């Protein structure tokens, strides 16, 4: 091995653990917490958008419009660097969670709303015909079916989110990408280190999409949609 290759090898090995640590300590928690909160926001927003209450619908539409129509990194900058000037200073991680949750909420609400609208009118009518209220019909008949429909697109958002958390580097969260930049500054081997961090992101999203497949499979077996024709 030449000296140069050996040096690269050592840097790779030495930086692997710190990178992974940053991933486990920040990237993954940031993803999971933001996605969980984002899903709740998405679900509530979707329900509001199909509700008959006009003003609430307007607010929900406005929120989705703002957060889908502006870059995520700008939103993060406003929350972290902008809000202090009106007296609201947030720790970097918290600012990240808020930004990412609101973004997931906006995109997710459209996914869930479309899924609810995709359930056939006949299902509503059947629910009403056995005497259900609108609320009962939603809770028991429409939403369970809609959630199944939304699993694949929501998983897509989830995987996007894993990668998007790298934007938190720009608001000083020491997540994985921020760590990679720090190490690069020390050794000045950008090609190696950025490829290394890319590799770890790839592993993370591969493992997580595997869970997505499992989840889809679980729903399929429950509704006997496939593989039941013995």
């Amino acid at each position, binding site marked *: 091995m030449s000296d140069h290759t050996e040096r690269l090898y050592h840097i790779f090995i030495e930086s692997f653990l710190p990178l992974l640590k940053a991933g486990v300590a920040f990237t993954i928690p940031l993803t999971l917490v933001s996605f969980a909160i984002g899903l709740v926001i998405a679900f509530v927003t979707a329900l509001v958008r199909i509700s008959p209450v006009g003003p609430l619908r307007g607010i929900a539409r406005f929120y989705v419009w703002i957060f889908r129509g502006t870059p995520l990194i700008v939103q993060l900058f406003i929350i972290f660097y902008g809000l202090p000037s009106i007296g609201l200073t947030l720790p970097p991680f918290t600012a990240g969670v808020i930004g990412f949750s609101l973004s997931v909420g906006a995109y997710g609400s459209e996914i869930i709303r479309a899924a609810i609208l995709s359930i056939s009118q*006949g*299902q509503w*009518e059947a629910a*009403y*015909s056995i005497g259900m*209220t609108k609320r*009962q019909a939603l809770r028991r008949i429409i939403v369970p079916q809609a959630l199944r429909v939304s699993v694949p697109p929501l998983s897509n958002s989830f995987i996007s989110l894993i990668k998007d958390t790298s934007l938190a580097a720009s608001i000083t969260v020491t997540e994985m990408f921020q760590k990679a930049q720090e190490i690069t500054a020390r050794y000045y081997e950008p090609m190696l280190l950025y490829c290394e961090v890319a590799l770890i992101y790839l592993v993370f999203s591969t493992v997580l999409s595997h869970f997505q497949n499992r989840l889809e499979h679980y729903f399929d077996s429950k509704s006997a949609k496939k593989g039941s024709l013995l």
Partner: protein
Amino acid sequence: MIEVKAIQKSFGEHHVLKGLDLTVKKGQVTVIIGPSGSGKTTLLRCMNLLEIPTNGTLRVGDISLTFEENVQPKPKDMLALRRKSGMVFQSYNLFPHMTVLQNIMEGPVIVQKKAKEEAKTTALQLLKKVGLADKADAYPDQLSGGQQQRVGIARAMAVNPEVLLFDEPTSALDPELVGEVLKVMKELAVEGMTMVVVTHEMKFAEEVADKVVLLDQGKILEQGEPSELFNHPKHERTRAFLSRLINPI
């Protein structure tokens, strides 16, 4: 049991029902026939408010509602009236994410707040009645159309409605599956269930109906006992409609 008075229904500029009066007596089977577009399905759907009449009065059991143009009836009133009847749909509309048993128990447990065990016992009895006792744990998409429709009937009956409404219950079925559904309906009729049936099955109408109502262009053209209406129709249009059914080509 049901009293329809001067019911009108418009979809925008399109007047589907143009002032109808109809009485359905307890324990009787009323069959509604008529050419396509005559408003028979709309009339049936008005009876449990899946369509809200534009004008007129509707009484089901002891609940009566009067409708006026551009006045949305109170959800509470609509619910009370709707809970008097059960509905069987042309496309079955079973809940695909639930087993057959869960489909039937859903109304009693969620709407009527009955105990699960009690609801299950009733549901199993109903399944037996429609000849599907062995399908309790199957999912709807594992059943044939005829089986699904029989589950649909059991589900509609599970909430103990005072009247059952059938919207072309056999129209989506393969011909060889029609019989099993009609047989269940016939048995219900014999047991004294009040039924309103929109159908093209003239043989069923002839054998089972107490009254046949012929709708044409949003109005009742003729009504009466099946033997009379089929054999001695009063109107030329009735005659024409019936002869087209008998000799479709």
